[in-house]
């Protein structure tokens, strides 16, 4: 790791000022940034730590509306009792991220701002039609995630929370990369008042996406049998040493089916 100046932000406003220092980067849980710095692949001059800002913490459930502060850890999301009732699929998803150490440090805001193509949260937020709240504006999830490690966040813009309406039914099924345990394919299905939406992480060569084929099959019939024989095209899916595009296409259908079964259970 190169030498770096560390700043602990006291508030979002404070962080917004500090981020203008040199070539500063925002630090939340640091689960991606710190390893990148340790291997000298990232070299910010300054780090602005958001993880102790009180206003970014916590899960709030009000009726059907769920709001999660950006610096809420995966562990907190996985174990929040109100959320477990309102949207157990998201609690379950958070419980599948990394390992206990990662879940106690990593945060939802950090995960979505990084937008790793194999991260779990982007699938959930896209399928849930969530809104990402920043210190400047509100952004719909389908406008927020822009390809591999890219979002619509502007320089210095800070994610403060995510909010969504709890769906009637939802589930997340993840097939892990055997080495990294990230998603090779993660499928989040949600059935809400606007119909069924299905988002896929880990597989797309341009990041998280909604599967039209699965959504079309489930639109009028949210059952596993609706997915019998549904084929997902391998086009635009990634191929790497762990999984071919064909294999990922197959897994999307299999994981979708398992997610529907879990959502209906």
């Amino acid at each position: 790791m190169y030498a770096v100046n560390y700043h602990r932000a006291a508030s979002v406003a404070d962080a917004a000022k500090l981020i203008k220092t040199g070539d500063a980067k925002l630090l939340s849980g640091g689960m991606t940034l710190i390893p990148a710095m340790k291997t000298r692949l990232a070299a910010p001059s300054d780090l602005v730590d958001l993880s102790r800002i009180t206003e970014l913490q916590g899960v709030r459930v009000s009726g059907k509306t769920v709001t999660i502060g950006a610096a809420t850890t995966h562990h907190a999301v996985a174990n929040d009792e109100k959320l477990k009732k309102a949207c157990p699929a998201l609690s379950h998803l958070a419980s599948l991220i990394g390992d206990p150490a990662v879940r106690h440090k990593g945060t939802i805001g950090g995960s979505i701002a990084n937008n790793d193509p194999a991260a779990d949260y982007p699938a959930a937020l896209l399928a849930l039609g969530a809104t990402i709240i920043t210190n400047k504006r509100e952004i719909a999830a389908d406008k927020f995630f822009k390809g591999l490690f890219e979002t619509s966040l502007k320089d210095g813009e800070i994610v403060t929370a995510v909010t969504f309406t709890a769906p009637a039914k939802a589930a997340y099924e993840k097939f892990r990369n055997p080495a990294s345990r990230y998603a090779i394919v993660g499928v989040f299905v949600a059935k809400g008042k606007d119909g069924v939406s299905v988002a896929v992480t880990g597989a797309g060569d341009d990041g998280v996406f909604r599967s039209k084929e699965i959504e079309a099959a489930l639109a009028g019939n949210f059952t596993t049998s609706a997915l019998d024989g549904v084929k997902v095209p391998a086009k635009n899916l990634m191929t790497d040493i762990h999984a071919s595009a064909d294999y990922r296409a197959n897994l999307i259908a299999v994981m979708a089916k398992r997610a529907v079964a879990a959502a209906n259970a």
Partner: protein
Amino acid sequence: MGIEGVGARVARKEDKRFITGAGRYVDDMVVPGMKHAAFVRSPHAHAQIKKIDVKKAQGMPGVIGVLTGKELKADGIGNLICGWMIHSKDGSPMKMGAWSPLAFDRVRYVGDAVVIVVAETKGQARDAAEAVEITYKELKAVVDASKAMDKGAPQVHPEADNNLIFDWDIGNADDTAAAFNKAAHVVKMDIINNRLVPNAMEPRAALGHYDKAEDHYTCWTTSQNPHVARLVMSAFYNVAPENKLRVIAPDVGGGFGSKIYIYPEEIVCLWASKKTGVPVKWVADRTESFLTDAHGRDHHTHAEMAFDKDHRILGLKVETQANLGAYMSLFSSATPTYLYATLLSGQYNIPAIHANVKAIYTNTAPVDAYRGAGRPEATFVMERMMETAARQFGVSPAELRRKNFVTSFPHQTPVIMCYDAGDYAASLDAAMKASDYAGFAKRKAAAAKKGLLRGIGMSCYIEACGIAPSAAVGSLGAGVGLWESAEVRVNAVGTIEVLTGSHSHGQGHETTFAQLVNERFGVPLDSVSIVHGDTDKVQMGMGTYGSRSGAVGMSAIVKALDKVEAKAKKIAAHLLEADEGDIIIENGALKVAGTDKNVPWFQMALAAYTAHNLPGGMEPGLKETAFYDPSNFTFPAGCYICEVEVDPETGVTEIVQFVAADDFGNIINPMIVEGQVHGGLAQGIGQALLEGAYYDNSGQLLTASYMDYTMPRAGDLPSFKISTSNTPCPGNPLGIKGCGEAGAIGSPPAVINAITDAIGSNDLAMPASPSTVWAAIRATKH
């Protein structure tokens, strides 16, 4: 057996310091004035070095020295060598290319060391390493051994035309051809043994210290064999003569073979210490470990087996291409030859065998012995072939094997080895019983109801440990002898130090070796210390690899104990005014048999050192040395049965049962043996299901971190059902065979045989990852 003697499940003495963080590894060593090194490594798999500019780096904060290969050459430091000469079948010696500890004209794999930077701190050394400017002219690279001999393939070394290092054979080609001519059935297979990264928990490290006052060097290094390191660094690398070089391998956190070899870094750190005038420490980071630790396996094999009409094996033909990487590592030539092809008779009567091995250079990390070293590759060939033959013939895999087992001993195979003892049917029976082999069909039907494919597979392995004897291995090309030494020092108060040339890097020698002493003299384990890993303390030794510490290292201790016992009895007989032949050792005392006359062990020891009352002419003291050179290898063998359930939708394999029935001969500490089996199985199952090192076509290692290289985790493994049987080894005084590698040797074919049984396709590569298994299932449907 006492509670601390041979056969007792004694808790490991060394574990307290390991699990409380009190172990002392090379990185824990601090020498006054010590500075830190970083290596500049090649980012290219193959390139010419046009220019190295170190000026900017030299001016960086904290930098003490920036040194290149040209300076190293100018100081007369030699090239790294391979210590086992193999001759091709045409009689020509192997074609070894030059391996300079620091590359100066050409780099041959990603990670090749080019420049060393020494600085006040590790961070400063790394900063300055980045400032070294090297101009490369990139060359085309070749990573796949099966393509490296193609016309027009990139040439890795000018010494080896077509990248062919040697073209070696063993056995009898004519007899084998004749056997095939009369065959009723022939089974043919193409088999790939996947490349692995060793992944010792402790990365490699070296601390070189040149003492100007004494004109003497000390090297702390992560070595499995510090004496061999000293010998090689003195005799071939011209670092310093042996009397001016001390090598210390303190606590070492795992080796699995990868720490047998002498690497560039320890040589360069020693040289740089003299050059810069400061002690120089280097510790690999995990990326360096992935890139530069010697990798394992990487064989491409075509095998054919001939059977008569009754399914008895008539002959075996094997053609193997072994990828040795960019340079010949210390024992790289022996691994795919004398440690591989000599095991191709398996547990079976095979009248004729012919094996041809081509060793090939590529632009990849050097490949050398890795847990099992050649025997896993041989076992994978044999046991995949036997299973495939059984399927082809429609007969029971167990009965086909049983029919062909060697049953009388000694048994001379057509490929050098002479098996001394074994009972292969006993292991097979034990494994079949433990696995409820007969009940498999029921379990398969139950799994099918859940939509899962259940399969069962077995592997009857044999391996060879304690490579020996010295004269024989010398005649086959080994550059060293393969004996072991021991010194037993009985102190004046009766406590005992055992100095051994074996080296423990996780094996538990401090416990098992002490159990041997306890068994003999009744001295408590606490009063026995095992000393190893320091060339200034232990006179000479050959180190630990190839499961040799029990069979060879402990046998040397036994010889020294024999001498101590003989002298102790003489002293006791004198003190007790008895006949030497009547003295027995019991409960910590030397007694006159059949009487209550005795002298306690410590009193006898004190008498040896006071020398007030010794037999006439006897020298004072009680300290004996022995060298032990075995008469033969030992031959552990056993049967493993693996049962899997495969999810056809995802290709995920779950090992639902794994049974291991091993014959290791006599056992000193069953708990430690079980630990070795568990660890070996984890590595073998890791190879079969999870682990694979992949390079892209340009020679970049794609699996250079744990994000992409799949290490086995506890959750990937079942609870093993293991047992042992015992046909004592007749070749050594303890009847020991060795247990360190069997798990890694025997398990991969059992796993692959089980999965291929489950999915109904015999075409399956390792690692059988979910995507690979899914693709194999899908291929059966097209």
